[in-house]
């Protein structure tokens, strides 16, 4: 915001302060001193860390928070800039050159550019603080372009919660030679008066006498030729209908033209083309070298102002045009990439990817364009850091996915990463949307994931459709153990995986579970599921189930659990031999009382005909596993 003139406190009113007001002022002075001390320190961070680095973001957020504590009661606070001190709006100095830790008083340069006041409003954010301080830093470091100074740069920021006040100059004593040697203010006044009071002022005459000849003489050849050709003679082809067409108002014209501005071959693209033309024309010339430098400089500037898409487009263009640079010592692409793969820069780019929702896609593409190894390493480090909050976790995983190739696939399962529990926990849910069949990292990642402490990770790994799970040895080593996992979902999924591709292994696993009585953590429902699944896949399954029904006496709770489940299943599949066994055990005093009662309960719900058809329990069935017609789960 550019401010209009702030209200200055009446000196008399200031003199008549109440004790409360004095107390408020004292508190405010102390707070402002603290805030501006932090702003002073923020410059050091801005110089060490690149745009978008999380440490800078955090520090600026802290400054904004501190400002907010003041703004809760004040709504806004004004700061007056002086050459070597800062004042409150009632004129009290609260931060001076001496109190600054810096050699150079940070606010001197903005003041020298004419900025004499700042006002912070409620709602000021860390991003705004950072933008403000980047401007102050640029001005102090003298990295400002020829067209800019503190005032123009602040205007560019278009702050919502920071207002600045600026003078055009302290004293205008420049002579405007075109205006007959008048000083700039005098020339301006002549123009103003001539415009406002043309009748009563002599200024019109003054202007007429100064500017009495036409002297537009800096036009290019084509313009002059064109204007002269247009000016000559009557218009041949012009019709009134042309006028009607031209003036026909169409609101769609604006948006149509805007689209041409914002899409397609944009200015950046064309400008780089122009610079490449200079290099192409004279690769080893000074001009060529400088054009190369300018390409680098502009691309890095685009990154600093967060125009990631444009910067990437330039880099892609440079890659496409590498033939231009092959014969030269100029290699702008290399020079652009070199600073970008430094850890601090990468950290900043990943951090911006978390913050800027609408830029995520572009940032991900940009990161993937850079050298794969350092980007992969950085993504891995971030993913392993539990302190690092990742608002766009999927985007980070996406980058990791895209930069992992055969050559660096082994890195993603390096012990230093895999051993961090959070690592796979973050990756696995976000890998599912990618094509993992052809990803070189998948096998290693899945093998590590099935052994992860989190059941969700194990389950996600099993859910990945990958050829690894079709490999017999891999299934035996990595999937089969999960059939005895502590978590039902994992066990169930592991069985499904085995059941789909490894029937033999599948049967063995179930048999092992049932025979060993591996019921730990399993619900009766799961046990029944296992038994039924086993029946479907193994011809001798019922023999095993009947054995499970048999136990009697003071057997363990595990066996009782298995017996109960087996009884339900054999009854469910209408296995007459099994039913007979259940019936017999329900009548035996050797059977544990509670189980006996449960058996009886089960039998009560059986069709009497079916119960009657059951053979004597000590007689073997005609054919093991044979089921009556219609008998199914």
């Amino acid at each position: 915001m550019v401010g209009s003139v702030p209200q200055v406190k009446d000196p008399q009113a200031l003199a008549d302060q109440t004790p409360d007001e004095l107390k408020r002022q004292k508190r405010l002075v102390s707070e402002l001193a603290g805030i501006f001390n932090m702003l002073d320190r923020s410059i050091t961070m801005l110089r060490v860390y690149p745009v978008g680095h999380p440490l800078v973001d955090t520090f600026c957020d802290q400054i904004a928070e501190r400002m907010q504590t003041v703004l809760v009661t004040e709504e806004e606070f004004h700061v007056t800039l002086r050459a070597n001190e800062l004042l409150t709006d009632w004129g009290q100095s609260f931060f001076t050159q001496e109190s600054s830790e810096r050699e150079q008083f940070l606010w001197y340069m903005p003041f020298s550019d004419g900025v004499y006041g700042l006002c912070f409003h409620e709602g000021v954010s860390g991003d705004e603080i950072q933008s403000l301080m980047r401007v102050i830093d640029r001005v102090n470091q003298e990295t400002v372009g020829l067209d800019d100074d503190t005032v123009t740069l602040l205007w560019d920021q278009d702050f919502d919660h920071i207002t600045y006040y600026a003078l055009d100059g302290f004293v205008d004593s420049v002579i405007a030679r075109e205006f007959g040697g008048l000083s700039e203010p005098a020339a301006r006044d002549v123009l103003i008066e001539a415009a406002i009071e043309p009748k009563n002022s002599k200024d019109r005459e003054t202007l007429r006498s100064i500017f009495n000849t036409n002297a537009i003489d800096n036009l290019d050849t084509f313009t002059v030729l064109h204007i002269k050709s247009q000016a000559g003679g009557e218009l041949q082809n012009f019709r009134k209908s042309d006028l009607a067409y031209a003036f026909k108002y169409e609101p769609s014209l604006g948006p149509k033209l805007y689209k041409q501005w914002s899409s397609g071959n944009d200015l950046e693209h064309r400008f780089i083309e122009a610079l490449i033309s200079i290099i192409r024309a004279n690769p080893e010339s000074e001009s060529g070298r400088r054009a190369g430098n300018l390409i680098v400089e502009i691309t890095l500037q685009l990154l600093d102002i967060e125009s990631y898409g444009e910067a990437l487009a330039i880099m892609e263009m440079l890659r496409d045009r590498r033939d231009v640079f092959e014969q030269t010592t100029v290699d702008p692409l290399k020079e652009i990439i070199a600073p970008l793969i430094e850890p601090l820069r990468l950290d900043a780019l990943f951090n911006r990817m978390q913050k800027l929702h609408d830029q995520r896609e572009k940032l991900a593409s940009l990161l993937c364009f850079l050298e794969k190894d350092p980007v992969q390493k950085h993504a891995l480090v971030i993913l392993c850091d539990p302190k690092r909050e990742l608002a766009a976790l999927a985007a980070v995983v996406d980058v990791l996915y895209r930069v992992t190739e055969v050559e660096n696939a082994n890195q993603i399962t390096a012990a230093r990463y895999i051993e961090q529990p959070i690592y796979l926990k973050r990756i696995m849910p976000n890998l599912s949307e990618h094509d993992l069949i052809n990803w070189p990292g998948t096998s290693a990642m899945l093998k590590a994931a099935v052994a992860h402490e989190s059941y969700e990770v194990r389950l996600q790994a099993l859910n990945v459709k990958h050829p690894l799970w079709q490999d017999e040895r891999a299934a035996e080593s990595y999937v089969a153990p999960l059939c005895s996992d502590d978590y039902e979902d994992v066990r169930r999924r592991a069985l499904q995986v085995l059941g789909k591709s490894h029937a033999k292994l599948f049967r063995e696993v179930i048999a092992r579970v049932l025979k060993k009585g591996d019921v730990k953590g399993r619900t009766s429902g799961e046990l029944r599921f296992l038994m039924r699944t086993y029946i479907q896949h193994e011809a001798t399954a019922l023999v095993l189930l009947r054995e499970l029904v048999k136990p009697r006496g003071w057997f363990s709770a595990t066996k009782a659990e298995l017996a109960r489940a087996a009884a339900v299943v054999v009854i469910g599949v209408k296995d007459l031999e099994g039913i007979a066994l259940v019936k017999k055990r329900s009548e035996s005093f050797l059977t544990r009382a509670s189980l006996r009662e449960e058996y009886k309960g089960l039998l009560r719900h059986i069709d009497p005909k079916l119960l009657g058809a059951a053979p004597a329990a000590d007689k073997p069935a005609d054919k093991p596993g044979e089921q009556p017609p219609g008998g199914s789960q």
Partner: protein
Amino acid sequence: MSQDTLGAKSTTIQNTRFLKESAGRADDVLTRKVGPKLCGHLIKLIKVSSMFSLDHQQTSSAALEFTEWLDEQLKEQNEEQFCLQISENSFLINGQLIKFDERAYERANVLRRQFGKLAVNQLTLMRGLAAGEIRSLIESFQRAGGDQGVPEGEGIRQPHLELTQAKVQESINAVARIDERRQLVEMYAGLLVKVSTYFQQLTGTSVPSARFVKRFVQRIAEVLPRHGNFFVGLVNLQLVAGKNFVHAANTSIYAMLLANEIGLMRSDIVRVGMTAITQDIHRLRTEFTEPEGMTVGDTQHFESNLEAVITLSELGSSDVLSALRLVTAYERGFPYNRTLPTVWYRDELKPHLLSRLIELARHYDVLTQGIDGVKAMSPDMALERLLSQIGSHYDADLTRVFVNLIGLFPVGVTVQLSSGEQALVIRTPSADSRKMMVANLNRPVVRLLDGSARIIDLSAPEHRGLRVARIVDKAQIQETPSAFFLF
């Protein structure tokens, strides 16, 4: 022309300095080097004269050294004078704060004390300053330090040296609240003056800063959505015409209006405005020449445009947003619908919207201002010339947006009504009335210039009997209207 045949040719390009390190911004040199050094010289003079007599060789030598240095600096900076001002808080040179380092700032306080004793705050040193004139300055300082004293605030005046009391604007109170209409006039006037100074500096050897120009462009861009018409009116009042700087400023206004109408972001509007102003600045340098006999799209055209880019890069900022405007120099000379040869761009591209937009704005302004051999046209005639090439030389869509913005009788022109009265156009027909109503084109809202200042909407049914007969030639305007009439 193919890309491969290019390498051997561009001797011009090879010999051109491209983005050569300049000595820095002109104003930076002034505030960082000249200013501190000037103070250093004055302090030295004070000290030497306090140790030796006025006639002593040491004093004379210091004075001579100072005058020689001063003359050299004035020439280098293309300035007629240096004006040193000292306020309670600051040291200024030619209106800009001197950028001292820490110790130099402390040392400069010696000067503040001396000036304070004399109750003056401004020392003006002009070209041709002689060592003898310095002597009178030193005498003043010595008298101020002694018992004799000098009349407070009186200072001294020599042919090339003045020691005076001036008002230094340093307080926020100095900025007064003023009428919004006047503020707008000030913006336009300020833009004209700053562009004129910038162009003036460009003709010298220094690389001046366009920051003060940009400040005005930014301010105008800010108010353009609400007051675009008013700026068109100010342009058409033709306070000043027929100068490069006026052409640049006017083109900038037209181009920004177009950019605003298209819906560009405010930073892009400023970019458009600055492009319009700086598009031809390389031609202000005497060393820049264009080859004769080139035709659109030939090798000479390419080389000439490339050279323009190189020279402009040297003069302008390498700041990304500023540098991008060089695209218009690279594409200069192509009609809107002509594809640039592949030596320009690998892909077949037509001129960018920025180039088309600037081309349209500048041509309109040149037609209405005139150039050597081409008389200035009235706005309606100029518009017809543009429209006669709509779709061939000029982008049809863009031109239609432009003519609808400007109108057949633009704001600010004086017209004669069918009743014989002269009137100032203050509004072009509104969008609604333009709809399918070509007849309304010559029915703007006008303010009578008969002393009554009555406003008449010519498109209103009750004024159907009245119409615009013609645009009045500047020389025949009976009563030059005030800019405030535009509101």
